[in-house]
């Protein structure tokens, strides 16, 4: 319950409403508890003494008490709902605000799908508990204590007898909730398995159909389905046995009360009204236990949700602005890496980049080439401070990027990321995302340079076409081109294309590169360009090509220089554009079938 308690700080701003709700709760319980007392009065003093006046006035008081209790309940509900809803809204807001401060490093650890779950269903679970804690969760124990108190006030002897039942019931609850919770978790696990099978079936529908594996899939699903069914039946059967058993124990207490109450009445130590009231108080004292037993599982679930929420809220942003950071003004766009090393999580042992140094002069195009995992994306992510270096420094016009304000630094950098994420809204909204005040002319120029103008024109409403959520109605290549246009519109000093043309065909890509060359040289100040690419044809014209291998720069230079000096570069070149000639080193461990490339 620790996490849940920590989240309760979000109730703080609404503490008066919460306290009000709790105060009303006391009123409600008092009213409810008074009723058996009043009915006892009717029986003993009214009926017993044949006093009609007492009967009627007490009945009226009861009616008034009932109305008051209902009124308290209504106001209590309204207050606790307000607190609960405001709590949920504030937690959601805190989550989103926290995430805005995160760096890519933080985001890597929290997948976005999880973030959505945390802000929706996790917040919901906790909110439910907060709301209930101002209602039944508090009311049940108060009610129970009150009922026990009244029971003792009614008859001390009966009180002790009944109290003996409590340990039995509580023990019973403890014994029963533990295994039941475990069984429910097992059901959840099997449900997850069923969902995985389904999810894979949907995601891999082409593979399933291509390999004619429908029957096998049906079998896979069938066994997951069977496992879930078996476990669910088990849980529900245990519940079916135990829940009525709890009722039996409760009723046993009633019988005992009746028996002892009856004997005491006969001995003249109790009145009939006291017996009836005692039995009522008894049910009242035991009922909350049942309610609380039902709350154990939701409480555990809410605590788990709370800890997931706290995991985000407690996340320390990895990239922070230094006090006294300077604003980047009139940038030229000279980027220098000085002995930069980087490891995710700051752990030196698995460095992704090691001792990287190079300079990109204003207006230069730097291409970065290398295998997956060689550190290409990481390298360029250090420029806008999506991550901070582990050692060394990255400078922008000679100033360490960590000494610049994050906003001013990023406002001069245009970046098109690997996955072209678009937002719901129009094509126009998406292109001018980074600079909402861009003119139509600027938008069109950017679209034209990104080779997107043509397909935008073919869309039903041109620039005003609303694209589906996450760009589903556009092809991958089209989304990538929009992402590039988006980067161009901000008129960046530094333009970073992170493998952002992988889904664009070669012909279009070449046009795009040409257009960028023109655009970049036409602007008043030259733009420094970084291109991460897998296709070698993309990088041929760069001023500098960096070949990364295992986090180190193994070669740097122009295409011509590298063809002469770098065997790795030659190898990449030949594998993609070459005539089937390979370096001898690779040839040695290749099978004969590769020869078909040459002659086929």
């Amino acid at each position, binding site marked *: 319950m620790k996490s849940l308690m920590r989240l309760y700080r979000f109730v703080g701003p609404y503490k008066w409403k919460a306290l009000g709700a709790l105060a009303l709760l006391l009123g409600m319980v008092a009213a409810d508890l008074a009723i058996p007392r009043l009915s006892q009065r009717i029986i003993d003093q009214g009926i017993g003494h044949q006093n009609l006046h007492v009967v009627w006035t007490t009945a009226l008081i009861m009616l008034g008490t009932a109305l008051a209790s209902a009124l308290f309940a209504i106001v209590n509900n309204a207050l606790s709902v307000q607190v609960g809803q405001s709590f949920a809204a504030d937690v*959601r807001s805190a989550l989103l605000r926290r995430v805005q401060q995160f760096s890519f490093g933080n985001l890597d650890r929290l997948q976005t799908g999880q973030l959505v779950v945390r802000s929706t269903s996790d917040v*919901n679970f906790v909110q439910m508990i907060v709301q209930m804690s101002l209602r039944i969760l508090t009311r049940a124990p108060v009610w129970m204590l009150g009922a026990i108190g009244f029971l003792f006030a009614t008859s001390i002897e009966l009180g002790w007898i009944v109290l003996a039942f409590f340990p039995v019931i509580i023990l019973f609850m403890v014994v029963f909730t533990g295994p039941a919770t475990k069984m429910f978790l097992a059901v959840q696990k099997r449900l997850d398995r069923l969902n995985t099978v389904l999810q894979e079936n949907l995601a891999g529908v082409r593979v399933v159909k291509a390999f004619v594996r429908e029957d096998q899939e049906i079998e896979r699903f069938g066994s997951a*389905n*069977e496992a879930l069914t078996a476990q669910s039946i088990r849980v529900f*059967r245990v519940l079916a046995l135990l829940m009525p058993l709890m009722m039996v124990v409760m009723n046993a207490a009633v019988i005992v009360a009746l028996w002892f109450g009856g004997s005491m009445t*006969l001995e003249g130590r109790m009145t009939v009204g006291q017996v009836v009231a005692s039995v009522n108080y008894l049910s009242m004292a035991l009922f909350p236990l049942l309610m609380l037993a039902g709350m154990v599982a939701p409480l555990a679930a809410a605590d788990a949700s709370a800890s997931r929420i706290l995991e985000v809220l407690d996340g320390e942003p990895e990239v922070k602005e230094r006090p006294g950071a300077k604003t980047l003004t009139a940038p030229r766009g000279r980027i220098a890496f000085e002995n930069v090393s980087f490891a995710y999580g700051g752990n030196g042992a698995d460095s992704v980049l090691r001792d990287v140094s190079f300079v990109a002069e204003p207006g230069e195009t730097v291409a970065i080439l290398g295998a997956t995992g060689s550190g290409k994306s990481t390298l360029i992510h250090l420029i806008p401070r999506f991550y901070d270096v582990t050692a060394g420094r990255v400078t922008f016009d000679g100033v360490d990027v960590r000494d610049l304000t994050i906003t001013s630094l990023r406002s001069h950098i245009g970046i098109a990321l690997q996955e072209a994420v678009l937002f719901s809204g129009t094509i126009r909204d998406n292109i001018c995302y980074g600079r909402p005040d861009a003119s139509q002319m600027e938008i069109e120029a950017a679209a034209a340079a990104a080779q997107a103008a043509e397909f935008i024109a073919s869309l039903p409403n041109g620039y005003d076409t609303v694209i589906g959520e996450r760009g589903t109605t556009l092809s991958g290549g089209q989304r990538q081109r929009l992402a590039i246009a988006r980067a161009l519109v901000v008129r960046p000093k530094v333009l970073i294309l992170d493998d952002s043309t992988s889904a664009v065909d070669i012909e279009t890509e070449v046009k795009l590169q040409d257009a960028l060359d023109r655009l970049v040289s036409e602007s008043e100040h030259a733009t420094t360009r970084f291109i991460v690419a897998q296709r070698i044809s993309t990088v041929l014209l760069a001023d500098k090509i960096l070949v990364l291998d295992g986090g180190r720069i193994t070669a740097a230079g122009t295409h011509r220089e590298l063809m002469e000096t770098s065997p790795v570069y030659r190898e990449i070149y030949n*594998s993609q554009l070459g005539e089937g000639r390979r370096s001898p080193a690779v040839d040695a461990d290749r099978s004969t079938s590769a020869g078909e490339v040459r002659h086929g």
Partner: protein
Amino acid sequence: MADARTQQISRPHMPGPGPGPRGHGMMAVERAKNVRGTLSRLVRYAAPYRAALVVVIVLAAVSTGMGLAGPYLLGKGVDAIIKIAMGQAGIDVLFRIILTMIGVYVVSWVASAAQGWIVAGVAQKMMRALRAELFDHMQTLSLRFFDSRTSGELMSRLTNDMDAVSRVLSQNVTQLFSGILTLVGVLVIMFVLNPLLALGTLVAFPLMVGLVGLVGSKTRKAFRGYQANLGALNGILEEAYSGQRVVMAYGQQDAVLQKFDTANEAVRKVGTHAMTYSLLVMPLMGILSNANIAIVAGLGGWMTIVGMATIGTIASFIGYSNRFAEPLRMLGDLYNQVQAAVAGAERIFGIIDTAPDQTDPENATELGRIEGDVLFDHVTFSYVPGVPVLKDVSLHARPGERIALVGPTGAGKTTMVNLLSRFYDLDSGSIKIDGIDVRQASRASLRRNLGIVLQQSFLFAESVMENIRYGRPDATDEEVIAAATLARADGFIHRLPKGYSTILSERGANLSEGQRQLIAIARAILADPRILILDEATSSVDTRTEVRIQEALLALMKGRTSFVIAHRLSTIRGADQVIMIDQGELVERGSHEELMQAQGAYYRLYMSQFRGQAAASA
């Protein structure tokens, strides 16, 4: 267009927000369209358990009856005490009553436990049948069906909708039944015990029912609004979080927060409103039961004094008043849940009722092991009627030939291979394999002869061994390893923590793109198809894996008719025919050399790749 579809389908599915909070009247309140029809259809799933259900009904009646006997016996007990005290009866009367009470409670427990026991089995088995029917039916549907829905939508059928139905089946049906029984039973007993007093307690009844009904309908309306607002907020959150990196890159945090704050505030307001309404029912019911107690005490007290009732009767009535309100409140609650379940069931049946749009003809030809002669004869096709994606395409691939399909993105290359696999059926023209129209062949036998390696290799969350075996389920471990070796995958698989038994995490995330591709190739090698369809990856992975993939592909294509959606020139050069597609039309065909000499569209595509090189070396 086709490419867009491929991506749409292979995009990782977002883990949906888990099962929402249960009960609490928080359910999405939806109106079902055809409640009666859907309910009676659901009932049909219970048909195999008819006998068990009859037993359940009997048991429910018994346990409800026994439950109702409690307050009655309590009243008898109170009267007995009074009589004993007045010397009108012996202590044995009280003793007998208490014994009866014990008996009643035990029988009640046994009956309701047995009832719950049986219902658990029946309800879960019904759910199993429903889930299986839905899933099995989905396997018969064509890609057109999957194209037109997101996987999230389909997931929701099997999770949320099933959940709603399951809840009603496993809990609410019995609750409903015993609720109604209790209500009727209480009324009967009260009238039997004391008609006048019973009438007295009923005074408040219609008023309360009216109030609850009114509040209920207001609540439903409010909840509909709440759900809509919540949906909008979730949409905003989903987009904000999934685009977080872009938001950061462009410094748009404030814009995101602004949009969110508006929606968040709306949810808070509407949510407060809806929940406050829904919680009104409880106190109203509280008034009913407490007012009843007051009436019983007041009216009953007077009646006792004038000799029309006993004190025991009053004690019984107080007990019954409490039991009276509970089922009423529950019935209101159940209404919402049943509505949600019927709406869910309707959507589930909607899928089950979708007729497969591709069926094999009556006496479909079972293709044996084919030669691999493929003929596209004036093929025209459109995904959306009126927007042709392929126009009058003809080509002929002889057994063992390698066909390279080239052309810009969206030209129709993927569509061609989709048609060959009969994922879709053509509008006009025909595709013949070994002279047999693919529409005349059974789809299963056709696809057994086809091997497909997609650009993004799809792997299952199973062991490496099982993933490769997917190509041929009856293959031995040795055959799997032989295929992996041929696919140049054996080496890295051995280096995995558990070799072939390594379980791939969801969607094979613990392997590199290249390694996943090698496994997919091994799978295709194991399947040993006669015709191979290959969607080459656009970008090279890394040179060493790249070389291995090339080799593996060559091994795979050897001796098979292959269609390659080619992005790499080395692949294109090795092809027997290069087919250039543009805007759904076949614009050029021939060998690489022939097309280069023709200096047409293909030549321009080829040269554009090398203009960089020319400039760089100039």
